[in-house]
């Protein structure tokens, strides 16, 4: 790592060589380059904006590990990881367009404000050409909006709300991760297979945007199977003890509890539900079941044995058997000593996808990069054949349905893959009502 902050490396040497210190050169940034933070030196700076404090800090740390690995691979260090399996061969391990990849990091604190402040400092101070990362939809939407205004590319990290590529989609923003609608679409057939088509569901939903879109999606998908929805109860984000929400469930006539929660909310609500013995109960002559639409390894760890047998969906899992996954798990596991999380995989893939798009476009200009990404079809990044849809900048790929393992071999085997739902089943129309109401707008190069 020689130079991290070489935003204006060439300009600097030019100024020193020419006018020396005698006369300052004054001009506005906008007139100097064709787009925001055009890399002019031998390096290009990416901004990794992940939660480093607050409840998602571990997820953020894993994202950061993946980013560091991706940078290594892009710069031709290490074993190359998924660069070897990626269907596009534009990247050659010599940085991006011959420029060495440097990066800066920041703390989103999982707050829209702090995340935007952090992203702004990357753009204004460090000259980052692309911002990526994050662990919640609120932050993703907020930073995506910022990047649109500033004229840089945003490659979303973990964000699952429909809104990110729905009503809040932006021309400069791209999401590799799947979304609430896809979770629901993938889960529904499996739920039918496992639990039948005559079920009554009770929803507990985190009372904020992501929770609502998740609940809306899963309710629609399960009702299409013939399930009924007994109730949908909104729970405060700040709630830690869900006992008073869970206690009435058994007596409501429902025989399935759907927990539209993520992170700490999910760990606590699931733990509470299991404490109340819901899993051992029989209602309507059927075993009572719990469903958690969005799973993550870290949540599974936090919930411990409560997770056993609980069904949910994931964007990716390290236990997949394709060669991309194998390559990624190998280089990540060798470097850090444990397998990567789905957050790590999506962040790694996003970095590679961005770099590849720049190479193919032949320019760092966000508009050119966006054009290269839109409608791009690829394979070999762990998710099978994938399409970056041009209409909404959402990736379409297979979705995993997973289940908490009954007898995990070790702490890395807490979940097992039940089914890989093919991409066709989770694809939706860009004008689907759950995603309507927004527009990509024009791409903004910032200058």
């Amino acid at each position, binding site marked *: 790592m020689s130079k991290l902050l070489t935003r204006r490396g060439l300009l600097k040497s030019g100024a020193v060589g020419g006018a020396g210190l005698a006369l300052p050169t004054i001009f506005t940034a906008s007139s100097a380059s064709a787009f925001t933070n055009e890399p002019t030196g031998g390096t290009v700076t990416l901004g990794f904006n992940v939660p480093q*404090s*607050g*409840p*998602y*800090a*571990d*997820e953020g*740390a894993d994202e950061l590990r993946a980013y560091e690995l991706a940078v290594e691979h892009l710069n031709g260090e290490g074993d190359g990881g998924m660069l070897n399996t990626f269907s596009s061969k534009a990247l050659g391990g010599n940085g991006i367009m011959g420029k060495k990849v440097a990066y800066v990091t920041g703390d989103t604190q999982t707050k829209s404000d702090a995340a935007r402040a952090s992203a702004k400092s990357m753009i204004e101070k460090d000259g980052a050409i692309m911002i990526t990362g994050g662990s919640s939809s609120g932050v993703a939407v907020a930073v995506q909006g910022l990047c649109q205004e500033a004229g840089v590319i945003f490659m979303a990290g973990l964000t699952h709300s429909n809104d990110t590529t729905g009503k809040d989609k932006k021309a400069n923003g791209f999401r590799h991760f799947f979304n609430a609608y896809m979770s629901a679409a993938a889960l529904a057939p499996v739920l039918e297979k496992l639990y039948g088509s005559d079920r009554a569901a009770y929803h507990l939903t985190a*009372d904020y945007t992501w929770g609502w879109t998740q609940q809306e999606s899963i309710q629609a998908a399960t009702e299409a199977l013939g399930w009924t929805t007994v*109730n949908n*109860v*909104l*729970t*405060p984000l*700040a*709630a*830690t*003890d869900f*006992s*008073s*929400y869970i*206690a*009435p469930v*058994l*007596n409501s006539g429902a025989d399935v509890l759907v927990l539209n929660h993520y992170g*700490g909310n999910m*760990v*606590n609500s699931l*733990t*509470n539900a299991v*404490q*109340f*013995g819901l899993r*051992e*109960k029989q*209602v309507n002559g059927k075993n009572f079941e719990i469903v958690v639409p969005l799973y993550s390894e*870290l949540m599974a*760890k*936090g*919930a*411990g*044995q*409560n997770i056993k047998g609980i069904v949910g969906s994931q964007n990716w899992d*390290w*236990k997949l058997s394709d060669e991309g996954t194998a390559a990624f*798990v*190998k280089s990540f*596991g*060798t470097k850090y000593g*444990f*397998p990567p999380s789905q957050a790590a995989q999506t962040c790694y893939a996003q970095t590679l996808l961005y770099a590849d798009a720049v190479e193919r476009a032949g320019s760092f200009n966000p508009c050119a990069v966006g054009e290269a990404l839109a409608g791009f079809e690829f394979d070999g990044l762990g998710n099978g054949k994938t399409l970056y849809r041009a209409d909404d900048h959402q990736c379409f790929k297979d979705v995993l349905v997973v289940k908490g393992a009954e007898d995990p*071999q*070790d702490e*890395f085997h807490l979940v097992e893959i039940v089914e890989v739902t093919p991409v066709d089943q989770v694809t939706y129309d860009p004008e689907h009502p759950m995603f309507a109401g927004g527009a990509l707008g024009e791409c903004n190069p910032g200058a």
Partner: protein
Amino acid sequence: MEAILLQILNGLDKGSAYALIALGLTLIFGTLGVVNFAHGALFMIGAFCAVTVQKVLTLSKITLDPTKTDFLGNPAQIKTPYVESWFGPDIGAALIDWSVPLAILFAIPIMLLIGVIMERGLIKHFYRRPHADQILVTFGLAIVLQELIKHYFGANQIATPAPDAFRGSFDFGAMLGMDPNVVIYPYWRLVYFAFAAVIIGAVFAFLQFTTFGMVVRAGMADRETVGLLGINIDKRFTIMFGLAAAVAGMAGVMYAPINSPNYHIGMDFLVLSFVVVVVGGMGSLPGAVLAGFLLGILESFASMNEIKSIIPGIDQIIIYLAAIIILLTRPRGLMGRKGVMEE
């Protein structure tokens, strides 16, 4: 009717958590006059005592099993906890299973020690300083403690299950002749409630029936006079601080199975416990306990669908709304004494 009974039960449980934390906080507030923003951190450290004991008990000898592979394709590591190899698989497994109750034994001396060190090393220099300075220093301390825990245990929640014997729930309603599954209640929450009742009772008995307690109560009522009597208040204050830390710590240990702890759990409770203490009234121990249960039960009621459908979002604000109403109708909270922290 059943729903109300159910929510009262839930409320009692929430309330016992609030009351336990508030009890320690008001001991420090009332006796020492210190605004302790690090009190939540003490609760959090208590919970991590449970995590630590669990981690220690599950320390494992690693052997390789060539028949299985790990995620990198190497032979899988089989972990056998040392306690299992030392005491035999049954006793070993039982020890691990009972790690949370065992952690209480570990937590009491640790928390007393932490409390005493905190008081002697830091807080005592701040007795005569403005409340603002106390807030700043204890808030700083809370952050430091939190970050240290985060550094060693990570930010993720750590599952600390209750012993098998207490898993699941029992049918309270069926006992009262109602339909089955109407009023169910987890065993561990019953344990928690009973535990809270015992601790609260013990603290009250200690303050009521011992000479030490008498002096402390006198000190809460009028610090200057007690000081004038030539009684060594300093030493007693140190012990009080240790006691408050131990109460918070034990509350944390027992809470760990209810919600898997993470490093932030103390901050989540901090604001709430201040509200509880103040609603109870400054300088009043019974007030804090009463307010804890009252707010716990109100919170549970507010989360009932019937009530939420009338006033959406009421469960988001009920505690604060109740606090405002109580403080406006009763100037010094439920049982507060005049002149304590009113300036």
